[in-house]
């Protein structure tokens, strides 16, 4: 069975979802990510869904679960790049993904994770803006 690749970027993991996922693939991704967060000692997970044309309740739930699981494993999940039409539809569907952090693109998502690490790991010197 094909699987969605998970890349390591510093202390974060990056998943780019580019296919119209069937449900088993989504479940497999959830399992793979959980493993990888621990084995790679990741502190953040970026899920890029900018290529996804729809997010239904199944995928929405998967994102929620990944966020909840990673939080327990001390990693922050950020879902990035959700398209406007997808966002409007999800809201209409009744899913707010309130446990999931979001960002406009991978770069912003990465900043969000870094900022969080800076906050928790305290005093690493001041960065200039």
């Amino acid at each position: 069975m094909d699987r969605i690749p998970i890349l390591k970027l510093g202390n974060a993991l990056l998943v780019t979802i580019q296919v119209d996922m069937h449900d088993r693939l989504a479940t497999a991704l959830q399992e793979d990510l959980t493993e990888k967060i621990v084995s790679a000692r990741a502190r953040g997970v970026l899920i890029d869904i900018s290529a996804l044309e729809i997010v239904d309740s199944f995928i929405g739930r998967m994102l929620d679960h990944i966020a909840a699981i990673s939080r327990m494993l001390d990693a922050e999940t950020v879902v990035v790049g959700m398209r406007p039409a997808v966002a409007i539809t999800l809201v209409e569907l009744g899913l707010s993904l309130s446990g999931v952090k979001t960002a406009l693109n991978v770069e912003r998502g990465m900043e969000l994770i870094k900022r969080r690490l800076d906050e928790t790991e305290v005093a690493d010197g001041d960065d200039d803006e």
Partner: protein
Amino acid sequence: MATTTSDRMEVRSSDDVVRVRQQVRARAVEVGLSLVDQTKIVTAASELARNMLDYGGGGVTTIEVVSDGMRRGLRLVFEDTGPGIADIELALKDGFTSGSGLGLGLGGAKRLCNEFSIDSKPGEGTRIVCARWK
């Protein structure tokens, strides 16, 4: 109301759900639905097809391009011969689920369509018709 094209698709596995989504998308583009409306009807189709698979033991989806003279639209019919829905009103409420899901399926799908109707007899099956107009 006139039907221009009609596709009949079996839904027996989660791969079939993906195929239904893709076909609904193709037809929605053909009808000329806006991007947001396309996304809504494809998402509704995904919810309803999966529902049929998970709770109705699979079934048949019919995708129809329809017109009522003034406007065009997409009508989807989902039919299964599963256990049926005992209390439709309850099943449409958010949060209701007979499975492990979040229970947004039916009510959510209804909100994504312009028209939505359920016909179900316990023990005989369920037929859901929904439509999105241009």
